[in-house]
């Protein structure tokens, strides 16, 4: 473990010895095995690992979105000081309030028979940001949220149904829905993996921008080191349910301690010519230069070449 920056405030998310056991037909699987980490305001912490290593199970376990009868959680998860493992009801106090999820596949994440507007209004109502009766206030708030995620002609989009929007637009809508409650902590499970490469950068930029404006903490799940490098402060490398390596982005990328991490790094070059055209990659991600994340241009351009 690397020395973490010392914070006097309590972390937004503190996970200690977190375990998730899944009851499956084949028996009990310990999908998450004693992981510990924390996220403070304005920080992005990334969990990276191969497929099946337990990343999603960790994220969904923290949100208590795993089926209650098939997933056994243990350890401690404090969300803004509220322990959600000890008391199953406690999660209701944070979901849609301090805590929000950005899902992996925006195309299936909204109800197809309900309009964008009705699903966004609902989120605003749950957050208590506007009363259910005040239609004007609801509408105004919804439009402002869509503007914040740079959706053109927001009034029009509210009337549309999910199938009428592209994947990139839907992910922006989902981010707007997540922001309805002014959350302090966002959990993003591969938020760009289902999207076209051309819109992935835009979504990551948006997350960084929001983080800078509001000091949101982000738990990012990805198997894409390019994404991790771009936005993370710290990375935890996951394998078979536990962290094999943790530390600052740059340190992990420059000096991977395990063969497993080296293998993950070696998988990166498919992403593009990071080393050949230093300006190309960061150029598309404008927010990166000003972002609050620890990533900086040199990190992007220097490290990609190293296997």
């Amino acid at each position, binding site marked *: 473990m690397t020395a973490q920056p010392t914070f006097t405030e309590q972390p937004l998310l503190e996970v200690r010895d977190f375990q998730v056991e899944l009851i499956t037909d084949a028996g009990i699987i310990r999908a998450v095995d004693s992981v510990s980490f924390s996220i403070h305001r304005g920080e992005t912490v990334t969990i990276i690992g191969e497929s099946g290593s337990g990343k999603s199970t960790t994220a969904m376990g923290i949100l208590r*979105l795993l089926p209650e009868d098939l997933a056994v959680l243990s350890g401690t998860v404090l969300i803004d000081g509220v322990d959600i493992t000890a008391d199953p009801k406690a999660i209701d106090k944070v979901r*849609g309030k301090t805590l929000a999820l950005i*899902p992996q596949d925006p195309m299936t994440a*909204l*109800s197809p*028979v*309900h309009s964008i507007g009705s699903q966004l209004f609902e989120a605003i109502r749950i957050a208590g940001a506007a009363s259910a009766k005040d239609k004007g206030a609801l509408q105004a708030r919804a439009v402002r949220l869509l503007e914040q995620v740079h959706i053109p002609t927001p009034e029009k989009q509210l009337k549309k149904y999910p199938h009428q929007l*592209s994947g990139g637009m839907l992910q922006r809508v989902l981010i707007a829905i997540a922001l309805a409650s002014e959350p302090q902590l966002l959990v993003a499970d591969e938020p760009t993996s289902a999207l076209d490469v051309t819109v992935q950068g835009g979504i990551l930029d948006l997350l960084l921008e929001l983080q800078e404006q509001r000091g949101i903490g982000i738990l990012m799940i990805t198997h894409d080191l390019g994404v991790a490098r771009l936005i993370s402060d710290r990375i935890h490398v996951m394998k078979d349910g536990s962290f094999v390596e943790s530390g600052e982005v740059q340190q992990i990328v420059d000096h991977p301690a395990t063969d497993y991490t080296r293998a993950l790094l070696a998988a990166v070059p498919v992403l593009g010519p990071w080393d050949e055209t230093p300006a190309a990659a960061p150029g598309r991600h404008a927010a990166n230069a000003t972002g609050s994340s620890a990533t900086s241009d040199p990190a992007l351009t220097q490290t990609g070449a190293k296997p």
Partner: protein
Amino acid sequence: MTNYILKRLGQGLLTVFLTVSTVFILIRMAPGDPAVSYAGPLASNEQLAAVREQFGLDRPVLEQYWIFLQQLFTGNLGQSYSFQAPAMQVVAERMPYTLTLATAAILLTAVVAIPLGVWMSRRPDTGKELGVNVLTIAGQSMPDFWTGIMLLTGFAVLVPIFPASGFATWGGLVLPTITIAILQIALISRMVRREMTNNLAAPFLTVARSRGVRSSALTWRYAMGNSAIPVFTALGTRFAAMLNGVVVVEVVFAWPGVGSLIVRALETRDYPLIQATVLLTALLAVGVQLLIDLAYPLLDPRVRLGKAATA
């Protein structure tokens, strides 16, 4: 949209036409003679011949068909032999009874099957759910004449709460309605459960849960909202089928609807009455089916708005 409606309407009318034409031929191919049923077994050959001439049955079948087509066009299918009244009118008088029974049965089905299916989907693999599940399988496999006779014996004979037959009071509606609904409830509740189980496991439900949507809204607004379309379609189709398919129940309960009417018409070889019954019930069923098709886009924005382009 107008094109679509016209096309469906045309298809529907063609179906009705083919149905009545087939019935026209089949009843004339089947054994039995209307003149014999009309004049009685003791009638002389001359008497029978006179009756046949009166009904126009002495003419070649093609000519009879031509007359039938003309009648079809004017909407007057001739006199019923046994009722001595216009066949269409006889059927039209019976129609409200069948409509009442079918409406009552489909309402009871919806009111019981939807909550039951939802309940089963929310408590999968519990003892109670298994019990209800077994009951629905039983309900699905009970023949309706058997259900009808059991209910009759139970609640009209042994414990006489409801009348055994006819529609003299609203109480008479209870047993035939239940008899029809048992099978429908069994089928529809299992369908609701299947749809709900799928939608409760859908990604959009997990995402909605993550933003703090309460469990009742998850079940009804999201899972039911997405299950409603196929369930509504199934209920509509079953309703359309009941309009010409509750024969057994109508006979068991002596219900004065078109189902018992057609049995009588077939027994007496009352050709005009058979044809009028088939025509009207087929028209009604096709009409209901068309309404369901038209309601579909209202329920499903993906159909209504098409696969539109990006934002």
